């Protein structure tokens, strides 16, 4: 059964009590909350995800509680809880759904040491994955969303999970978090794109989540082989500029921006070595998404130089 098979009322009631068990790729989450914003976000953005029967078994048992204040002028807030721990300060109630997504990511980044967890987006085509690393503001989420609209399968927008035993990336296929202008940009590429509620005034500005395509969610169990690593940098103007990036630099960047590289010790080193070994690495400056999508279209797993050459050609 999927989330979509519950009526909105059924969904809200079930999430309130006893909570809902959602399977999201390698993780099962037990979510329990009376906060309507979150139930609404789940309804809109997780509709293709399977619900499990209330077996009491989940990787993360999380809840979100609306905090009460005796002072009526204080804005209502929502607090996150994982079992009996409440690791974060509460946020305004309107930000409840982004908070759910951030907290879910936090759970994975801390308790999934069976993977090397890298801060990057990733998309897949024909079994091969492109990894898009980058700090907030680099445009990786926007680029990820644009590629997904183009037809690449969404693996993840934030946490790239690499399995040591297979060196493959496990998919999460969860909603893509977009900020500010990115939301408009994506809507202009495809006005049919489904979004969850847009929250204004978060610490990052306006935040909204794009619904993952049904195909991506249905194939969440299919891992992908890493093949390309592209460091995007969005610029407001200028021609597209794609250049090969050294493997050494790529390695060190990943080592620094992975959540648990050091924790995994020699295993982390080996997994990352393997990843960087098999991938072609680029930096990519761009201002126009259309140019960039075409460049990605040209990716051919059998060709090393082709992608780099076509990038130089478009620059000339």
């Amino acid at each position, binding site marked *: 059964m999927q989330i979509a098979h519950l009526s909105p009322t059924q969904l809200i009631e079930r999430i309130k009590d006893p909570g809902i068990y959602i399977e999201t790729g390698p993780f099962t989450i037990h979510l329990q909350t009376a906060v309507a914003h979150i139930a609404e976000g789940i309804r809109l953005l997780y509709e293709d995800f399977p619900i499990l029967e209330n077996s009491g*078994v*989940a*990787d993360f048992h999380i809840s979100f509680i609306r905090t009460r204040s005796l002072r009526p002028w204080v804005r209502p807030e929502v607090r996150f809880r994982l079992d*009996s721990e409440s690791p974060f300060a509460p946020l305004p109630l309107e930000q409840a759904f982004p908070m759910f997504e951030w907290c879910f990511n936090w759970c994975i980044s801390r308790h999934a*040491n*069976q993977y090397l967890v890298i801060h990057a987006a990733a998309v897949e085509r024909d079994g091969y994955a492109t990894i898009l690393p980058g700090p907030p503001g680099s445009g990786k989420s926007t680029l990820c969303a644009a590629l997904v609209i183009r037809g690449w399968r969404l693996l993840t927008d934030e946490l790239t999970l690499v399995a040591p035993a297979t060196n493959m990336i496990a998919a999460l296929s969860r909603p893509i978090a977009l900020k500010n202008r990115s939301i408009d940009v994506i809507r202009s590429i495809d006005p049919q794109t489904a979004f969850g509620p847009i929250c204004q005034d978060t610490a990052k500005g306006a935040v909204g989540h794009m619904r993952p395509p049904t195909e991506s969610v249905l194939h969440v169990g299919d891992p992908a082989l890493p093949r390309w690593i592209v460091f995007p940098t969005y610029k407001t103007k200028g021609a597209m500029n794609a250049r090969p990036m050294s493997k050494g630099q790529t390695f060190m960047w990943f080592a620094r921006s992975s959540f648990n590289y050091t*924790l995994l010790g020699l295993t982390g080193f080996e997994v990352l070595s393997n990843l960087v070994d098999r991938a072609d690495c680029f930096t990519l400056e761009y201002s126009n998404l259309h140019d960039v999508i075409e460049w990605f279209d040209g990716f051919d797993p059998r060709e090393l130089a082709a992608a780099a050459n076509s990038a130089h050609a478009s620059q000339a």
Partner: protein
Amino acid sequence: MQVKRDVLIQSFARPDSVVSLTPFAWDMLVRCTRPHTLLARLLILLDEHQLSDKIPAFARRHLESARIVANNEERVLRWEVNRIQRALRDVDIPIVLLKGAAYVLANLPVARGRLSSDVDILVPKDQLRVVEEALCRYGWEAVKLESYDQLYYRTWSHELPPLRHRDRKTIVDVHHTILPPTGRLRPDPEKLLEAALPLDGTRLKVLAPADMVLHSAAHAFQDGDLRRGLRDLVDLDDLFRYFGSDPTFWDTLTLRAEKIDLARPLYYALHFTHLVLDTPIPERILQTSWRWRPIWPLPAVMDMLVTGALASRPLDASKSMGSFFRWLLYVRSHWLRMPPWPLVKHLLYKAITRGRRKKSS
């Protein structure tokens, strides 16, 4: 007194019992074990008892993830000891590793699955300065404490304020004795240093087995508030089983306890590990330890406090009797640490500054 065993304690006391757990119970077990930072330890225990294939896949993932964390903590600890040795290369004094660092470097079974990367060392009191200066030359610096806390450490406590390495952010605690010098029990550090044993391949030492056990007991029941609760008992259980396989150990232990004034904590250690975890302790040793019991009604009170404090925390964060008992033990540990009037002042000060901090944040 019968102990009502919840699934967590039962799994440690009787590992075989896990074969009858439902998936729901396994889920609870993982969630209950995690706050005690005992997940890795549990996995190792189950592996030892050839119960690995009885662990369902979903639970196994979490146990393995925790084991990876524990392996890393061990590595961090070993490297820290490496760096400490380097910093103290030219300081020719006896340095005794305590607690986790000792367990790991001595390759004791109790070290496996532990999550602790702070290093505790014991040095002669007159060498504290020298050691502090040497460590500070190599990148450690005193943790920034308010001057009140600094004074507390240096006057009442038995260690320098913790030293944190500026790059690695790891902590070294330098002790000159193992319990506060103002407390009721005064184990003589010189006796401990004298009996310390060298660690092969290093110039470091560890406490002799009986002293190691007594230190762990003191840490759990005198100096500590059992906040680590089950973890402390699991450590003691491991130590008793390992050293207890040598039949001469038990008499050495009881004699030593009286000699260095740690008989009372040993009574508690023997009593509670036996009660809660079924630790195999020779009956005659348990009987010997009764003479160190506190006077009535304290044994019953302690039974209640400790078993209450060990109860698994409810998973919905509601205040429970368990947290009340833990608070009582916390007060008790300070009672034992400081004379009454300074204690009242100390607790008041802490309460007021905590209140002030809350208001301003």
